């Protein structure tokens, strides 16, 4: 027998405790939650928010790989002055993935000009986005905990640095349901060049039921898996099959059977999706001027433009969360500019700048920007030091993201990094604060939006986040 096997406690104590205590209270609360969820025939039916919402939908323009704040929205004259020198000691120590402590600072070749009425500086990399700056709130003091892609991407999407937790999109679907009756409520449009380091689990619903899973749009052909009839089956034939399925399932249905009724509804919805969604997916119904605005039909904007336009069409139909990914596959096909920041960012910006601006303008002219929150950014920024001669490494201690629409006050920059863009020093906002702000705009409280899992009330923000008050 092990030295530790002296188990104390006796039966009398057991019985004293058997009918009182905390556990039963917690349990009944949990059951009520479970019942509420099970009772609703359709878990995706729209649900009221916790407080009045400013936004109904989110479009996340995910710049995968980590775009540089130093080349986009956070000009640092001192960095150019110190170009080629080691980082002065007063800026402190940091850990990078690749660059070492003796690396030299790298100035930027970009130039910044005041844009819009607000006059915020935007780099010449993003001339179209600059035109929309009065609608954009630039957060220059973002920071996260991880300096490698996979873990940082998990944190960006799920609030945790490990896989297995629900993403923002799944949380919103769980909290608010969807207003679309013929489209999936949470859509991810990956970059056709390939996947991200964190892979599928980053977008997934984690421990939430599969009903809250993302629908991954395929890059080619028709975007949704299983929307096409199998080859050789005609629509007429399929309608008869569906009638047979309904007839047989109804034949064994007893009154008040919520789950089987929900199954009948699921088949109706599936059929509506099949009939209506392809029409919505086809962006060529748009006027030529709109296609041109998004850069559809010309390179290098065609692909991202098409996906941004589709994002608008989805949001218009009540889809709750759309993620439009820029970058995928090997690092250089993402914003992951290890070897040459100029070449990489010029290329990535050229693909996305016009479509992003077109999306904002299009949403605005349709009156959708008020209710659609647009988030732009990556899992981190890039290092002030050079990697190799011309590249920049990952950097998580201070970087830029922006928000627009959905009640966000644009035309301002919030927070600041130090004079070389190394560390967020003024009003630092963690990724969890960005999450909290998004939830807030959609009318959700981070603590109320929870799910009992393995004995914990899990939520999107592991540590409580704060709303970025300056912009709401």
């Amino acid at each position, binding site marked *: 027998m*092990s030295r*530790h*096997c002296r*188990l*104390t*406690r*006796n*039966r009398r104590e*057991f019985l004293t*405790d*058997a009918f009182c*205590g905390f*556990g039963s209270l*917690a*349990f009944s609360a949990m*059951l009520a939650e*479970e*019942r509420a969820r099970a009772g609703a025939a359709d878990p*995706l039916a729209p649900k009221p928010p916790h407080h009045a919402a400013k936004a109904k939908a989110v479009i996340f323009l995910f710049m995968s790989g980590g775009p540089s704040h130093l080349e986009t929205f956070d000009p640092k004259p001192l960095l150019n002055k110190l170009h080629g020198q080691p980082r002065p000691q007063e800026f402190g120590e940091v*850990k990078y*993935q*690749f660059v070492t402590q003796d690396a030299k600072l790298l100035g930027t070749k970009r130039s910044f000009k005041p844009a819009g009425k607000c006059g915020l500086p935007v780099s010449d990399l993003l001339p179209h986005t600059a035109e929309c700056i009065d609608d954009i709130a630039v957060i220059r003091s973002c920071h996260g905990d991880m300096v490698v892609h*996979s873990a940082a991407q998990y944190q960006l999407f799920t609030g945790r640095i*490990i*896989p*297995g937790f629900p993403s923002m999109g799944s949380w919103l679907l769980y909290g608010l349901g969807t207003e679309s009756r013929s489209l999936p409520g949470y859509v991810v449009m990956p970059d056709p060049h*390939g*996947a991200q*380091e964190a*892979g599928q*689990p980053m977008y997934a619903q984690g421990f939430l*039921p*599969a009903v809250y*899973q993302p629908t991954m749009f*395929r890059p080619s052909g028709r975007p949704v*898996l*299983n929307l*096409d009839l199998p080859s050789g*089956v005609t629509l007429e034939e*399929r309608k008869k*099959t*569906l009638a*047979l*399925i309904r007839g*047989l399932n109804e*034949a*064994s249905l*007893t009154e008040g059977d919520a789950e089987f009724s929900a199954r009948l509804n*699921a*088949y109706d*919805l599936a059929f509506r999706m*099949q009939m209506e969604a392809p029409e919505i997916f086809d962006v060529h119904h748009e006027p030529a001027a709109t296609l041109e605005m998004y850069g559809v039909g010309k390179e290098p904007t065609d692909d991202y433009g098409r996906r941004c336009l589709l994002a608008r069409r989805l949001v218009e139909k009540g889809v709750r969360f759309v993620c439009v990914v820029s970058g995928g*596959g090997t690092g250089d096909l993402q914003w992951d500019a*290890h*070897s040459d920041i100029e070449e990489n960012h010029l290329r990535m910006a050229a693909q996305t700048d016009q479509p992003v601006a077109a999306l904002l303008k299009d949403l605005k002219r349709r009156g959708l920007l008020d209710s659609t929150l647009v988030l732009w950014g990556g899992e981190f920024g890039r290092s002030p030091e050079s990697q*190799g*001669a011309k590249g920049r490494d990952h950097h998580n201690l201070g970087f830029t993201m922006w928000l627009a629409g959905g009640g966000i006050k644009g035309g301002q920059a919030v927070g600041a990094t130090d004079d070389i863009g190394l560390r967020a020093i003024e009003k630092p906002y963690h990724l969890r604060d960005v999450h909290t702000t998004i939830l807030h705009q959609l009318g959700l409280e981070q603590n109320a939006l929870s799910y009992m899992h*393995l*004995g*914990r009330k899990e939520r999107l923000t592991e540590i409580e986040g704060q709303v970025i008050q300056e912009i709401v």
Partner: protein
Amino acid sequence: MFGKPWIAALAAASLLAAAEPSAPLGTYRPAERRHWAFVPRAHVPPPYFTDARDRAWAASPIDAFILHRLQKEGLRPSPPADRATLIRRLYFDLWGLPPTPAEVDAFVRDHAPDAYSRLVDRLLASPRYGERWAQHWLDVVRYAETDGFEYDTHRQDAWRYRDYVIRAFNDDKPYDRFVQEQLAGDELAPQGDEALVAAGFNRLGPLRKNAGNQEVASSRNEVLTEMTNAVGAALLGVTLGCARCHDHKFDPIRQSDYYRIQAYFAAVYERDIDKATPEERRTWQAQAEPVEAEIKRLREAMNKAPREERGQWLMKIEAMQDKMPPPLPAIYTVANDPAKRSAIHLLARGEYQQKGARVGMRPLGVLLPDGAPELPDDTPSPRLELARWITHPDHPLTARVMVNRIWHYHFGRGLVSTPNDFGRMGARPSHPELLDYLANEFVRSGFRVKHLHRLILNSNAYRQSSSTRNAAAEEKDPENKWLWKFNRRRLEAEEIRDAMLAVSGSLNLKTGGPSVMVPIEKELVAALYKPAQWQVHKDPREHDRRSIYLLAKRNLRLPFMEVFDAPDFQVSCPRRESSTHAPQALELLNGALSNQQAERFAARLEREAGAHPGRQAVLAFRLAAGRPPTPRELALAKAYLASGSRREFALAMFNLNAFLYLN
């Protein structure tokens, strides 16, 4: 010369150890110790009934406890399910497969009093049983065959652990031994492949490997965390992981308890044991040598290059590493390396740089007398010590947690409805005396899982009908907590797939061995960070094997599995969701798998029932639903088959509640 710095380092380490404060042993209040799951199991005699009818129903202790509670709530049990329903229930429950029409007929016609218990015994004796029940355990231990994170590297021989679990269930391996082998197989039987494979349990968690400046201490901390959390969730059924960052908010588990459990793993490292034949090794070397030479060349070039170009060189090396031939057969296990023992500290907020006081090995303090000492660091076989503590017959948690899991899988709901959380935030047992009765029986039988199956499956509670209409009971106990009927359930993802294969006649029952990658949509493969990882098995017969033999890849869940709520391989899953939504309908109506199987099912109907629509419809129902169609169903089916396609009819069968649900 070599030894000198090593001795100096050792001396420095021991000085450090002496200077570092140790965490206090802590005390636990009587109220904390009194939590129901921490006190010894009770031995309550089953209730006695005066009414003869009650006595007949309550023939077994399980039924006596259930009936007693039902009566207290003013409820009555449901009548037994019919025999066709019972045999289908048993087949899916124990095998995860449907019975054949001949098997249903034989059972329905067998009026011997022991027909039912013989059926239970027959099902338990089949290898199909282990293939079904191993899946439950694999859910709990978050089994997968890839690392996860960015590389999601395949663990070529991880399937050996899966086969070990299947064998353990089939052989009715005592659960105490099962736990000991998994936690400490390398210490228990270092010469035995079986136990070494089992100890791969300690390596099942996701593993982060990144390019560039590796944070060795950070990675080590993550590995230790995975090992520690698994003990809490899978074996002890307490949310030990909550105490990683701070004292547990609700349970008497201090942060020091967490790290004292972690200390048992302080010297654990991965160990791969080469099992290749000389021939295999020669072939491998012939393929590997040119690649290795190139890697060596790249490394040398990197060492000569300026430091800041290291990243690019590393990427080139990494690309070359992908060209290495697949690893040789191996056993993935662990071994203690006392020389590389990690010092275990309390870590503020769980962060590896935020070191607090040092701790040594000790099990959970709330289950020990106050002041129980830590084990010395040089204790031989530390994990075996932990395993023996966990599997001690008097341990208040272990047996309760396992019998509750078994009950949960049989009834769709545990006596404790939170199978991984027996703490204060978890559910309290609905039938505490029954839980203890089962746990006592489990221990008394020598931790035999099949003994518990027999007790449960032969009870009247299990044999109740699920389709009883009882408005009053529905109103009073809508969740069926008191078991006034059996719980209908949707088949799980693997069961649906396996049943489609079985019904269409194409199921390949080959057992064991390396996992299979099946054909999937091109776009899904393209969406992998390394698409070359997905190597579809060349023999199409392999694609028709049972789902437990399909590769469990963390970064690519099969859409069919995902849409039907299969777990995500990342964290322990004690209880699957059962959601209902439109993508499931799309998957079954338009998906490649269901359409392929429908085609084969249609061909089978024609082959076995001839061209007669009525006979085809009857056979289809008997295969897919385990019963003949009702007159209304038959009329609908015949009308459809008169003009519609047989293939679409077969597809419709896969979409029926009668196929997808278990009564």
